[in-house]
């Protein structure tokens, strides 16, 4: 492994340096039929799960085959995507916001060979490389964060629970039997890089223990004021501790105020908070981002704790499957999961889904909490 220079000269970093050029223009990458009909589309139709046609004013049609993907993707896999796009789509493709891949062709007779090719490609373990689906009133791909693959504060993995969940929900990725679309998201800690807070179903990793303090190294490794300032609830104070007969500077944590966000750990590696028993999965449901019919809404916590149980998180996938099945059977056409829960009442939601309601689910965090309590005698009795 001999070092090969790109041309960069570390002694003169500004020499021939190119900066601030931004991304490549999207116009370079539009397939010809898309470029020609840009802004002139009339309507679309989902021909079957995962296959769309868009029809332009010119009469041109573009057929899209949407496939799922793991967002952690290797060079080899992307080269295989390229091979497919070169073979069927004149070298063009696109990705969706939810980690799906879209292969587009400009005539209907090209759809079937493309589909056959995509579905014929399997992984060593038997899984599809390119499952077709993710359209309409079904479950589309999960947007998620890094988890144990690349993050320092996760309370769970991301890629693993996503794989396990999509295996369980696979039939609803490849079909459209739901009352409306079901958007699932995963964030591996409450910082929510994945912003799961407006999803039909949100899988959230959650720590339940305050940081452990590595007093001996804390002052050597960290800027104590930064660690203190990083705490959103002001739970950290400077302090002095005895270690090996020596008084050293460190911090103390008011454990009752800690919300386990890990922001202190980001600033100070001597305050780790990952814990095998403490870390868990929280399920939140009923959020949406679309303005369709009802306004966008937040997801609500309906299961405060499920064990963090790799490699397949069965308790989590069972709970999700159950909620989705009850929703599918009970909701009206077009009704999103949160709209359904609000219509029947959340007390009925818990009853129908067989979920236990515990004190953890009553909001007690600052002002907004009050507005979630019931200022009314209107409620439904449940068994």
């Amino acid at each position, binding site marked *: *492994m001999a070092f090969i*220079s*790109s041309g960069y000269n570390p002694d003169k*970093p*500004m020499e021939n*340096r190119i*900066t*601030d050029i*931004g*991304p490549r223009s999207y116009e370079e990458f*539009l397939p010809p039929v898309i470029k020609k009909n*840009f*802004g002139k*589309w009339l309507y679309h*139709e989902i021909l079957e799960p995962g296959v769309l046609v*868009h029809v332009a004013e010119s009469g041109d049609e573009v057929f899209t085959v949407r496939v799922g*993907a*793991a967002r*952690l*993707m*290797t*060079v*080899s*896999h*992307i*080269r295989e995507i390229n091979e497919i796009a070169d073979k069927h789509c004149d*070298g063009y493709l*696109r*990705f969706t*916001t939810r980690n799906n891949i879209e292969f587009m062709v400009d005539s209907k007779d090209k759809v079937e060979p493309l589909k056959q090719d995509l579905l014929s490609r399997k*992984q*060593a*373990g038997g*899984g*599809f490389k390119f499952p077709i689906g993710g359209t*309409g*009133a*079904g479950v589309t791909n999960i947007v998620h964060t890094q988890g*144990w693959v*690349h993050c*320092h504060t996760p309370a769970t993995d991301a890629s693993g629970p996503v794989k396990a969940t999509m*295996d369980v929900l*696979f039939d609803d990725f490849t079909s*459209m*039997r739901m009352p409306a679309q079901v958007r699932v998201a995963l964030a591996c800690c*409450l910082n*929510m890089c994945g912003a799961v*807070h*407006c999803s039909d179903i949100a899988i959230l990793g959650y720590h339940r223990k305050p940081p452990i303090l590595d007093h001996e190294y804390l002052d050597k490794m960290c800027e104590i004021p930064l660690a203190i300032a*990083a705490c959103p609830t002001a739970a950290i104070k400077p302090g002095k501790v005895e270690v090996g007969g020596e008084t050293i500077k460190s911090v103390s944590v008011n454990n009752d105020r800690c919300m386990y966000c890990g922001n202190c750990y980001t600033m100070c*590696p001597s305050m780790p908070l*990952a814990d095998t028993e403490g870390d868990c999965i929280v399920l939140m449901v009923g959020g949406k981002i679309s*303005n*369709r019919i009802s306004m966008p*809404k937040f997801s609500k916590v309906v299961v405060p704790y499920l064990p*963090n149980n790799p*490699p397949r998180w069965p308790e989590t996938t069972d709970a999700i499957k159950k909620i989705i099945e009850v929703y599918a059977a009970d909701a009206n*056409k*077009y009704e999103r999961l949160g709209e359904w829960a609000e219509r029947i009442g959340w007390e009925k939601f818990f009853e129908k889904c067989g979920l236990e309601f515990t004190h953890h689910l009553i909001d007690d965090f600052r002002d*907004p909490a009050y507005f979630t309590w019931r200022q009314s005698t209107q409620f439904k009795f449940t068994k």
Partner: protein
Amino acid sequence: MELKHKTPLLDELESGPWPSFVSDLKREAISRKTNEKGIDYQCPAEMPEDLLGVVELSYEHGRTHWKHGGIVGVFGYGGGVIGRYCDQPEMFPAVAHFHTIRINQPSGKYYTTEYLEQLMSLCERRGSGLTNMHGSTGDIVFLGSHTPQLEEIFWELTHNINQDLGGSGGNLRTPSACLGMSRCEYACIDTQALCHYMTNEYQDELHRPAFPYKFKFKFDGCPNCCVASIARSDLSFIGTWKDDIRIDAEAVKAYVGGELKSNAGAHASRDWGPFDIQKEVVDLCPGECMAWDGSKLAIDNSNCTRCMHCINTMPRALRIGQDTGLSMLVGAKAPILDGAQISSLLVPFIKAEEPYDEIKEVIENLWDWWMEEGKNRERIGELMKRQGFQKMLEVTGLKATAQHVKEPRSNPYVFWKEDEVPGGWKGDINEFRKYHQR
């Protein structure tokens, strides 16, 4: 082929129909191990293998084995690279450092295979051969490279691929957009053009952290919000229209008659019975502005809230209006600290035409305010709550309208400004005492 580490737990994620990241990682591990093309890897060939090893260890322990990054990056930029180190470097030396590189994706995420191959060749030679397509904010992510390769990757990106990095840290994060007019009949604005323009306009803000915290732009072409701008961006741009929904009366009849499938066929895997326009469209309209008399659909557009339901349900019969623009909403963020926020409406309607001067004025006024008043790590949504919506109107020079609220306040604690009350606040006590004894 035997790999470096046994991964019995991860191996269980190779079964099942959904694409397995474990199988894919193993595939790359073998590709690098065999190195059929004879590539002179600039990062260790074992990176995918050691990543599998470290993740397996996390599956055993139920805990992560990554540490936070420290300061790594490329010269002159304050973002785009996120440092990452493994806490078991002796066991997994190939991923001892494993820094992430964010690459600004093209607007709308269309690609040619030629361009993707350029990126993949770079990722293979100077990285781990692993990516995220894409990160949560929208970037193309090279997952894992070593410190000496960062400048080399940046050099190759800018010199050979004409491509820049994305954002990280306290700066403008990589903006993202839905596919907009390129393939969607609902697009009220050219989201890709607007996103591309703003990304280039604010390169300095994107690369050099000068903000109290992160700031995200997302551009949605219509109120369906496919890129989740309303939940995931500090400034949400959402296409909308002012005039009437266009109706094709014949196509409406075709939906009623069952010749056309409701919602573009989105419910096809289940028998929901014959389409009932009254129940499925008219009765669900949040503006209650539609009427169906058995042969003709009427819309009272003045009471339409543009929720998209009727258009989504009958896309061949109903189309968005033609006087299009966008709404700007401010302050979405994840829950830390005071709870999650969805963006709040600031500009009900603004035209989206190059050079977008009016839009830029709103953006820059908001930034000036936030950079002046925002505390360290305070998102603009939190500043908005701390100083009040009125303050945001003041700094942007916008006039309050009833559209700004769902309902007016239910407490009367109006903080009047001195110049709003005749005579101001300097009372004359002697004048007062002439009429009121002590």
